[in-house]
């Protein structure tokens, strides 16, 4: 107990030095956790952006559809499949689509696009394009051939709301047709790549023009939770091919894994810097108190107790600073999780990665505990070297030191 008392009081002996260590710990924890939260937030946004915009959690296609996007490879037993999907409670909503590759042309130019024929009421429940309109409405105003176009494509084609765009594509007999559609809405998602390559039209219009009435190329399924994805996949019994979001866009899964590794590497660097800070400060503290340590060894305090006393001092420093660092981190992550961090200056780069210009920080609760534990472990290990130095002091020499 007396060791605890001495160690605790030693912490406050040189307030400036202790404050420097504590501030380093606070900043170390805060910067580590905040960068983690930002990185996870970026990745989470990229994933949820992709899922909410075009991926959804699961997609069902004809087994051969993805080989060459043949228009005639429509989903097998569509209505039976619908019935099955209706009974799975973990499914929040699903959307049936026709998927046709074609060209969008205006007098300003023509660009390759993916044309999605959708049922707006279904699609609205699965993707958030309806919430990302920056102009116009969501395929519910114009009667004849309405379309939704991405902001980037609209800009390239030089079109605004109600402007005409000619869509060229092949029907089921491979005849090329060119039909004029009118822009009913312009959307801007987090992904500029998606915005410049995707057009939404009504299912009926596209089905009629291609002759694919009753056919469906794709069913996008949104589960209540992302974790339900695999379970829902197992429950669906169909000859069609079912892919999870991670199978369709493996780069998203890889990105998540990479980010996780990166986060630990980054945190490792922060903690290493922290460790050197602690070692340096504790070594200074030992040099300053050389004669006192010499006295303790002289009067009969054994080396184990001297060692414990020095390690305790470091632990106290960290125990004071760590909660402050964690609270600061929690508060700033919570605040920027709601209000976001405006990264407008690099928005172009972020949008090409499918991330919006405002980043919302996010950090699971368990990470706070992990980092706190890691910090404590680093602090204890950092104290070992200075403590060992103290043990090497020769009492007769140390007691005379000034």
């Amino acid at each position, binding site marked *: 107990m*007396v060791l605890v008392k001495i160690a605790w009081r030693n912490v406050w002996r040189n307030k400036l030095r202790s404050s420097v260590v504590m501030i380093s710990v606070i900043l170390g924890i805060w910067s580590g956790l905040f960068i983690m939260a930002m990185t996870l937030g970026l990745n989470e946004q990229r994933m949820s952006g992709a899922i909410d915009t075009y991926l959804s959690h699961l997609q069902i296609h004809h087994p051969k559809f993805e080989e060459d996007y043949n228009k005639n490879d429509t989903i097998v037993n569509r209505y039976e499949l619908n019935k099955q999907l209706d009974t799975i409670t973990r499914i929040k909503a699903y959307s049936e689509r026709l998927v046709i590759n074609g060209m969008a042309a205006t007098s300003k130019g023509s660009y390759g696009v993916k044309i999605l024929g959708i049922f707006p009421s279904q699609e609205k429940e699965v993707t958030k394009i309806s919430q990302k309109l920056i102009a116009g409405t969501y395929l519910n105003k114009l009667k004849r051939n309405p379309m939704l176009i991405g902001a980037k494509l609209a800009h390239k084609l030089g079109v605004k709301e109600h402007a005409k765009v000619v869509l060229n594509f092949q029907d089921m007999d491979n005849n090329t047709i060119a039909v004029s559609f009118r822009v009913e809405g312009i959307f801007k998602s987090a992904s500029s790549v998606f915005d410049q390559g995707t057009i939404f039209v009504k299912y009926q219009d596209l089905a009629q023009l291609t002759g694919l009435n009753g056919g469906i190329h794709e069913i996008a399924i949104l589960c209540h939770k992302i974790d339900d994805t695999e379970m829902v996949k197992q429950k669906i019994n169909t000859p069609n091919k079912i892919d999870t979001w991670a199978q369709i866009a493996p780069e998203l899964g890889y990105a998540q894994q990479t980010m996780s590794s990166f986060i630990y590497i980054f945190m490792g660097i922060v903690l290493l810097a922290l460790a050197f800070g602690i070692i340096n400060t504790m070594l200074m503290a030992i040099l300053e108190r050389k004669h006192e340590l010499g006295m303790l060894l002289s009067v*009969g305090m*054994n080396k184990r*107790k001297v060692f414990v006393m020095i390690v305790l001092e470091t632990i106290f420093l960290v125990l004071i600073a760590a909660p402050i660092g964690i609270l600061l981190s929690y508060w700033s992550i919570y605040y920027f999780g709601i209000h976001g961090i405006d990264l407008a200056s690099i928005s172009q780069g972020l949008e090409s990665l499918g991330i919006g210009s405002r980043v919302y920080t996010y950090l699971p609760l368990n990470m706070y505990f992990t980092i706190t534990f890691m910090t404590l472990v680093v602090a204890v290990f950092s104290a070992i070297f200075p403590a060992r130095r103290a043990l090497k002091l020769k009492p007769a020499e140390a007691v005379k030191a000034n």
Partner: protein
Amino acid sequence: MMKVIQTQELYKIYNQGQENEVRAVNKVSLEISKGEFTAIVGPSGSGKTTLLNIIGGLDAPTSGKVIIDQTPIEELKENDLINFRLHSIGFVFQSYNLIPVLNARENVGFIMLLQGMAEDEINKRVTDLLKSVGLENQMEKRPTQMSGGQQQRVAVARALASKPKFILADEPTANLDSKSTGDLLDIMEHLNKTEGTTFVFSTHDQRVIDRAHRIITLEDGKIIDDVKVN
């Protein structure tokens, strides 16, 4: 009289075999009995502190033996030696060396805590010890709130706390004024007379030499004189 300290042909040689060889302690054999009030005197560099360090087990001799209360201390392992110091020797240092973050009471009690004594017993003994050095009103003060003389009195109380076989005091009055030196010597002499506490000082302070009952004079590490004073 029971021998508390015995040294047999003690040598401490620095840079042995080299041109700049120094014999800090040169064939010192002495015996100090229980209850003696001994001053080891000599000019600076005569080997007083080195001899005291070797007797206290803080430094190892190059050769020779130190026997404390029939225990040859060079045979003790490091941890046993530390434990031996804790239970058998009291130290008083020139610059007091109190723990600055503890008050007088805690500084004195600290040694007893290390010895594993019960808290009630510690409290009682601390009070008695601080009373015996005239600091009953300064118990809650930290070293920085006390004068040099008061700090050295706390150091004496601390040295006595472990009920040691003897107290080694290295230049205990070197940093004290005349009044404090007188007070400290009164206290130590009183403890020596009433409790039979054995004191061994290293000093070149005439005021201490004048009060010593035995004076051992060192020069170049050798005992050149050893007289008892009545």
